[in-house]
């Protein structure tokens, strides 16, 4: 990141301004969520924040439960930073950034016990449903974290179980049964440059970010997952301020999710 541009962004932020005219705590508009964009997935959602576009798809399969949790199904969340979406993304196995993105979104859903994995059990010790969520980036114009988290949750809510008869899944037939969701986590990533805090960066603001905190929050206002990223350290006061911003912005995103 060249220092001139970073300095310029920091200077603007310190005055409460941004390069595209937004205020520091303003998300780009429109934010749109379109469900059912992939008919081959059991559930799917396409989220657009500004020009950033992410698609998440859910596939369901029946596996043998883990020996230490014989009465539970499982959840897997993975992300791919597709080279289609950003000139800097390379072809090949997911790099550490894709892995982090997947794990951060995973944490928000898993640790909040959003999905009651006990309800995924079909036959204890023998068969249980596995929920696999795959996040694929289509256009990266900044803030993949929040777009991906939103897409993953929307896709899980959109999902319907395929027909399961005689130990076989018929993917062509969708039942009306939904994945048992007890909580709906919403993620807000707050960023810091210099002394300024802001949300929803565009590509340049993202490169200039010195520290970020992704906060996952459930509908009761509990913080259910945290991830700090970025090269600079933050103070406890920063963390509290960032959480305050996240708790505030969460309401806006939750309303859009519906």
């Amino acid at each position, binding site marked *: 990141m060249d220092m001139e541009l970073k300095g310029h962004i920091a200077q603007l932020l310190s005055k409460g301004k941004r390069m595209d005219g937004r205020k520091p705590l303003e998300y780009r508009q429109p934010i749109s969520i379109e469900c059912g964009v*992939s*008919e*081959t*997935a059991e559930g799917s959602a396409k989220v657009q924040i500004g020009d950033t576009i992410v*698609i998440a798809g859910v*596939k369901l*399969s029946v596996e043998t439960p883990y020996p230490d949790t014989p009465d539970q199904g499982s959840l897997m969340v993975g992300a791919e930073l597709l*080279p289609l979406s950003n000139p800097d993304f390379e072809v090949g196995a997911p790099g550490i950034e894709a892995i982090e993105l997947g794990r951060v979104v995973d944490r928000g859903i898993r640790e909040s016990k959003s999905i009651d994995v006990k309800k995924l059990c079909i036959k204890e010790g023998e068969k249980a449903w596995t929920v696999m969520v*795959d996040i694929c980036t289509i256009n990266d114009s900044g803030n993949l974290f929040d777009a991906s988290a939103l897409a993953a949750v929307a896709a899980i809510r959109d999902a319907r179980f395929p027909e399961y008869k005689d130990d076989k899944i018929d993917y062509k037939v969708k039942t009306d049964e939904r994945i048992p969701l007890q909580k709906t986590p919403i993620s807000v990533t707050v960023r810091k440059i210099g002394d300024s805090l802001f949300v929803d960066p565009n*590509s340049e603001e993202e490169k200039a970010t010195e520290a970020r905190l992704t906060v996952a929050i459930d509908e009761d206002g509990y913080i259910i997952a945290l991830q700090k990223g970025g090269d600079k350290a933050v103070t406890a006061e920063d963390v509290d301020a960032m959480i305050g911003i996240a708790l505030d912005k969460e309401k806006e995103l939750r309303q859009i999710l519906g």
Partner: protein
Amino acid sequence: MSYDQRIDGRSSFEELRPIEAKAGVIKRADGSAYFKIGKTVAYAAVYGPRNLYPKFMQDPRKGILRCYYNMMPFSGQGDRVRPGANRRAKEISMITEKALLPVINLEEFPNAVVDVFIELPQTDAGSRCAGITAAAMALADAGIVMKDLVSAVAIGRVDDRLVVDLDYNEEAYEEGRGTADIPVAILPNSGKISLLQMDGQITREELKECLRLAKDACKRIYEVQKSALKEKYIVSGE
């Protein structure tokens, strides 16, 4: 007991499934396109000409075209497909490149590379053809010098009928003589063929007829590609 009625209800054996096409859908890319035919959807993004690494691949006389075809894990007809390049994707990436090369003048960008990425969020047969069709639009959108566009469609035989644009159910048809699946890519203005593959069983006469059907179907696809590209650049009220 012949194939009289198309499984998805299409009235004619020469009918294409409903098509949607749009150019410029991925803002970060130098060129991009979205192409949907029936339930098969392809996104294509072009980056380039850009720096080519590793350096030993650079050729001072001409550039290279690199294509990557990939199906998203949830885009298959059944189980989840584990992400990562598999042999099928690698082969399709290569034939995509071969299908597009005849229209590209590599001497326009020596030492450099034009990268084409194709991703599919859902498929219902004809995916490599949809990918090539979207890629051609994306290349044009990126301002790459091209002699022509490339349009692609899968022609085939379902039992005793020759059909245009097979869907998954037609591909999988097992009664009677079974099927033949023939993906074809054509340069619309010259009628030349840049991709030809065949799976199944076919006679020489049937193949001739299939190629004729392909040329005709690709003309129709070309009109859609043209409209999508022009639509992006025409300002209302001009």
